[in-house]
């Protein structure tokens, strides 16, 4: 099953997104990398790396990020873990996490899920 990592400046936001996904995909492989080591706001290279390793399998891992350093630090982690199947998704984090984990749970592959996630940001709510 494809794994997911939620990268946010906020520890509570990342954990909250995990809670949200458990409503529809309780057995999905998903890990949080929110905030700094000390719980403060920011993004941590080490936390992101550990979270990816936690949910990694040959099926790959999709990372969803909030803004700025969350994106740049994730890029650098992926470069450091060269050769592994890790992709970043450019979509709203909460909605994307729910869509992606449901997709993974029904057995979709990483490329198919990424195509789905591309649509997540384009659907209007109102």
């Amino acid at each position, binding site marked *: 099953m494809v794994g997911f990592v939620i990268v946010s*400046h906020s520890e509570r936001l990342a954990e909250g997104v995990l809670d949200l996904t458990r409503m529809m995909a309780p057995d999905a492989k998903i890990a949080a990398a929110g905030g*700094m080591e000390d719980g*403060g*706001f*920011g*993004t*941590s*290279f*080490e936390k992101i790396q550990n979270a990816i390793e936690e949910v990694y399998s040959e099926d790959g891992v999709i990372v969803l990020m909030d*803004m*700025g*350093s969350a994106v*740049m*630090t994730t*890029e*650098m982690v992926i470069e450091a873990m060269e050769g592994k199947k890790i992709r970043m998704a450019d979509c709203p984090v909460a909605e994307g996490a729910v869509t992606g984990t449901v997709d993974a749970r029904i057995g979709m592959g990483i490329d198919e899920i990424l195509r789905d996630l591309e649509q997540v940001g384009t659907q209007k709510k109102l």
Partner: protein
Amino acid sequence: MKTEKLIAVVRKIAEKIESEKDFLTELDNVIGDGDHGINLARGFGEVEKKLDALADKEPAEVLKSVGMTLVSTVGGASGPLYGTGFMKMGMALKGKEEIRTADFLEAFQAAIEGIQMRGKSTKGEKTMLDAMIPAKEAIEKAWKEDADAIAAFAAGIAAAKEGVEFTKTIAATKGRASYLGDRSIGHQDPGATSFTMMLEIVGDEV
């Protein structure tokens, strides 16, 4: 500049960032997320701890270590950005015992390109690049006109300061300040400011 001097420069940069952290954070409070000074000071604090162990390494190794430490400990956008910059400088200087002005310019260019790639940004977006790019061009121009290194760096620092002033006149289109749009006009960019502080230290030690 050899390793010993480079380590002394990095130490002075760390001290400068520490002493200016409240000022940098204040600038970031106005148009960003208010963590630039605190984050950079934390990163350079960690950098300082590793310097003694690098005394017998070539300059490239020192720069690479500075970059990697910043990436892992800063926590904000300045971590991956300055981190990439220092790492790219290290790569460009690989195998060199001493950094001469021509080598520095080459490494500086590599750092700028790395930061542009990492931040998907360019000049004129109210970022550190608005101080970096003019500074590099000014040092290069002076150097080509046979100025000595001291004069060339003085020209670079003047251009960086002008760059900081320029960031006051434009709206941010990258980074957190871009969320404010035109309301970011009138305020100087914290990243351009911290870069200028670093270049001033380098200029003092040339």
